[in-house]
């Protein structure tokens, strides 16, 4: 072969290779392709992954993603219907459902993102602004469980019943956005409120409210403690009185019974001979009443000394004289 024919051969080889690569394209599992011929879209999208053929040079493969794609909203400052200023961050996941339409209307993802910013942020704003804050925070009307704390002093506003709730509000945003985006070949799977926060200046006021709320709860606990302890002390006082008085009643009763029985025994016994009893008792009294301090002034006429005067004072001295009463 001559040097010239070698060059021609090489040129053909390169041309052939370029033609082959230009007529082949791959579509991955995550992609879909729109074929354009001189810039004009040719038919529906190719969504089947694998190796595909196209007319070389004239046709171009425009690749779009097939997966759920990101859209993350910015922190929007929105006033709610009840004039609370909050920051709302939403996210949405979307996909190119109609690549042809998407291609025609938005060209590429960048265009889509900016359009979604407009639409979703706008609808979020609209929906949040036309509802009270509580609607976007709570989901159900479930009653809060009462813990240790006294819930009834919570702000009445936060105890309000909701009409829609967060779930329905996000549904509402999704619904409204979903009405618009099919025009762009876009389908939305979901819109979620990722974050809701008070803006700085409101937050300070909320903190103040929380502090005063907690203070009230603390005060109530304290006074409840005082009340309960007073109750226990009262119960104690009462029981002490019951115990003491009952004991007094019982002792008096028992002692009375003893006294009564003793009295009846004495009475029975002494009734048999009252004269003797009186005499003995009198004698006993002498024992107990006469002591060192006592002066006894005794007449010789008393029985015991009658014999001092005369042996025969009372007749026969040999005889004992019984004092008579």
């Amino acid at each position, binding site marked *: 072969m001559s040097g010239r024919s070698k060059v021609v051969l090489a040129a053909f080889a390169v041309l052939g290779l370029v033609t082959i690569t230009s007529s082949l394209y791959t579509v991955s599992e995550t992609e879909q392709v729109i074929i354009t011929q001189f810039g004009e879209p040719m038919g529906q999208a190719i969504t089947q992954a694998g190796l595909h053929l196209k007319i070389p040079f004239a046709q171009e493969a425009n690749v779009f993603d097939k997966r759920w794609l990101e859209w993350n909203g910015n922190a929007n400052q929105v006033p709610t219907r009840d004039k609370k200023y909050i920051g709302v961050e939403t996210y949405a996941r979307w996909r190119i459902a109609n690549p042809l339409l998407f291609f025609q209307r938005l060209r590429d993802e960048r265009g889509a993102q900016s359009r979604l910013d407009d639409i979703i942020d706008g609808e979020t704003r609209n929906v949040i602004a036309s509802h009270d804050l509580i609607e976007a925070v709570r989901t159900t009307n479930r009653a809060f469980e009462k813990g240790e704390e006294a819930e009834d002093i919570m702000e009445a506003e936060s105890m309000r019943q909701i009409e829609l709730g967060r779930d329905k509000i996000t549904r509402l945003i999704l619904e409204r956005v979903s009405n618009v985006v099919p025009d762009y070949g876009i389908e939305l799977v979901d819109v979620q409120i990722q974050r809701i926060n008070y803006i700085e200046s409101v937050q300070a006021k909320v903190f103040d409210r929380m502090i005063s709320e907690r203070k009230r709860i603390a005060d109530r606990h304290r006074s409840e403690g005082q009340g309960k302890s007073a109750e226990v002390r009262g119960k104690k006082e009462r029981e002490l009185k019951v115990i003491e008085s009952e004991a007094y009643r019982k002792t008096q009763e028992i002692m009375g019974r003893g006294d009564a029985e003793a009295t009846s025994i004495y009475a029975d016994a002494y009734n048999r001979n009252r004269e003797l009893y009186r005499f003995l008792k009198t004698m006993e009294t002498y024992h107990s009443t006469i002591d060192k301090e006592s002066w006894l002034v005794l007449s010789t006429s008393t029985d015991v000394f009658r014999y001092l005067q005369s042996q025969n004072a009372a007749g026969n001295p040999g005889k004992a*004289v019984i004092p008579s009463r």
Partner: protein
Amino acid sequence: MRGSRRPLILVGLVIVGLVALYSSYYQVEPDEVGLVTRFGRFVRTCNPGPHAKFPFGIERVQKVPVQRQLKQEFGFRTARADIQSSFHKDEKTEAESVMLTGDLNVATVEWIVQYKISDPYKYLFRMRDVEETFRLMTEASMRTVVGDHSVTELLTVGREAIASKAKELLSHLCKLYDNGISVQQLILQDVDPPEAVRPSFNAVNQAIQERERAINEAWAEYNQEIPRARGLAEQKIQAAEGYAIDRVNRAKGDAQRFNALEEQYRKAPEVTRTRIYLETLAAVLPAAGKKLIFDEKAKGILPMFPLGQVQEVKP
């Protein structure tokens, strides 16, 4: 000239052969599976072990750690996991953790979520940036659930319920987005009121302690005094019983003694009487301090004594 070219071509072929060999071999680790695509199209899944594929990018393999327990952290990051792990927080993590509660209060919640890739095909091909989206899904779920609980519930009794509801919601979102992830566990970590109001929350706890202490003290007093009072009461009652028995026994004794005496007395009343009288005086008279015996017929002594000091005893 030809002779000198041939080895060059041979070397070229060997190099191409080596590259082909190298690019057709791959290994799947024990906790992974490999997903093979040919010209972009998914063709097969490979289990752990050594495998071969078409070289030169005709077949590509993507490895997905399906066995691994994956974890995302919210409100903090583990800077270094060790026996004593160190954590890291900044403005970004704080923004993750601050949220509104159902009673329109603010709380900071830290939590983790553990998950597995249950469907590697979906994980790779259904959603772009699955991990980041999963973060957002988790945040949205947690905030939705916290938004339906009071701050008190969040801090005390509701923790378990909140975690399990958030997990439920997150699992629901995973199913909706079809992202091939299955949520294993969602665990609440530190849940606190915001820094600025924390002292007042602590004050509430303190007040609860104070309340309990006041009540306990009152009960302690009660328990101290009531049993003692009961004991004392019992003591008094027993003493009264003793008194009653004492009275009755003495009465019985006295009565019996009297009866016995009386029986004998009846036999000789006068003698007995005199005997007792004289015995008594014999016992009594020595005990008296001063004794004065006078004759009634000798009048005049009596007025010499100040009568106030005289104790006159008449039988």
